[in-house]
């Protein structure tokens, strides 16, 4: 599993440019992921690779095409110092795990990375970096396998009830 390293404020236009938004198929979207921003990504990304970024990953447009374009290339986890709100929810809903790692900026491009979600760290070239758990109320959606699976069997929802934060 290799690291694809990006900087701060990677917006959803960079992840998947506006001209490809008539496409909804993840595999097709993945062919244009980071097009113009990092052209070798789409050709070289492999199943299980991890996108690592700085602050505010996924800012901008609400397009769900962005996490779909990552999934289509086999990426199921993004590690960043922080995430933009809409991307964070979209990612969880469609099955890309957004993981906050305050030291993500210290991880280098191309490095081999392994993840230990249970113990809360990633390991890169012998060094461990702490990762934060996702908010408990989102964990339910992750455990179900995404929001579609979570909602499929629900007939109604408990309106106005509060959840665990």
């Amino acid at each position, binding site marked *: 599993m290799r690291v694809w390293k990006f900087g701060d404020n990677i917006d959803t236009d960079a992840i998947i440019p506006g001209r490809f938004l008539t496409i909804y198929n993840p595999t097709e979207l993945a062919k244009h992921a980071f097009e*113009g921003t990092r052209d070798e990504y789409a050709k070289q990304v492999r199943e299980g690779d991890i996108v690592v970024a700085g602050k505010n990953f996924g800012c901008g447009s*609400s397009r769900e095409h962005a996490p779909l374009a990552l999934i289509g290339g086999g990426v199921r986890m993004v590690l960043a110092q*922080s995430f933009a709100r809409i991307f964070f929810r*979209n990612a969880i809903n469609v099955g890309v795990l957004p993981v906050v790692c305050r030291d993500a900026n210290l991880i280098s491009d191309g490095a081999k990375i392994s993840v230990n979600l249970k113990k809360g760290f990633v390991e890169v070239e012998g060094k461990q970096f702490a990762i934060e758990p996702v908010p408990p109320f989102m964990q339910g959606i992750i455990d179900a396998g995404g*929001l*579609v699976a979570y909602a499929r069997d629900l007939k109604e929802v408990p309106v106005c*009830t509060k959840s665990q934060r």
Partner: protein
Amino acid sequence: MGSTIVEKIFSRKCGNEIRAGEVVMAPIDGAMIHDITGPLAIQKFSEMGGDRVFDPGRVIMLFDHQIPADSLEAAENHVFMRKFAKEQGIFNYDINEGVCHQVVLEKGRAAPGEIIVGADSHTCMYGAVGAFATGIGSTDMGFALKFGALYFKVPETIRASVSGKFQKRVGAKDLILSIAADIGADGATYQAIEFGGKTIEKMDMAGRMTCCNMAIEMGAKAGIVPPDKVTWEYLKGKRKMKPFDLSSDEDAVFAQKRSYSISDLEPQVAVPHNVDQGVPVSKVEGTPIDQVFIGSCTNGRYEDLAEAAEVLGKKKFDPKTRVLIIPASREEYLKALENGLVERFVKAGALVEAPCCGPCMGGSFGLLAAGETCLSTSNRNFKGRQGSTEASVFLSSAATAAASAMKGRITDPREV
């Protein structure tokens, strides 16, 4: 302990006290989908076992990003959505009315105290009428369409108090670009921004829309202006509602309070490639530009077009600069037409297009080639947003855009 306006909106809806930081499954008053994010939302709705939407009268559908259909794929997406609208009994504004956010407000589909979600990040614009409105992705929208409710983490609020009187040809866009530069691209993530103070109280609805529209550019979940006389006046004839009080308590707990004094504010320009890179126009004056875009949900209203026309006067645009002017909606277009603005722009050398998102998101027409520069009144200048990743986009008000279009280079509107 008092409550913020956002806490009050959620508490009113649910009939019990809800505080920032709490996660609540809240009922929604409206759900907006358009031609880019709508097809996927409908697909997700179906995958979730959705049969009938929660309330067809509360679903707002229209097409604005790729209209008239600019590709076979876009045409097919439109057909798919029309079919869904028909099956579900949803009123579809189709390609006829303009940019989604402008249409939602002018048709009275958002009102004070309501909770509205839209499958578009600039949905936060409806905060201009005192609604809590936020952008969501297509899967969340599928959920909202099925259940008429969605999980919200109720945000804390940053209160931005604005005082002072704008200089001539300086206005709401300059203010919000300077606030974005101050707060930063992620400075309000997961928070709401409440705009208040004397300047906002005096600001017209068009300006409030511009401010709330760009709350997302600081990462905010919502922007909001407490409803007042200006709001209720705007809603007359749109909604049958009795005015009521809705504002933050003085002893509400805010994440931050920030004050802005704008009497000396210069026209602002956000330089490539982030929205929080706003600088006074004097810092970039003279930068040559290939294209000017006046339009979008941020600044495509009649007030913006009138401001551009006032700056233009009887002069012409620079013939070497492509000038695209796109009113945000049919209503705004008609006002511009009836007041002679369209004729003036066309005679000055501009292309005036039918209401739509235009080049704002780089998916349709008006794209930029590598090496080109555009000055745009829209909301994002991300690398590649309007075409090539080697193009540059600057953001400004309509006044600055018009002045710059006349000179073919970035120009202070106070100097033409």
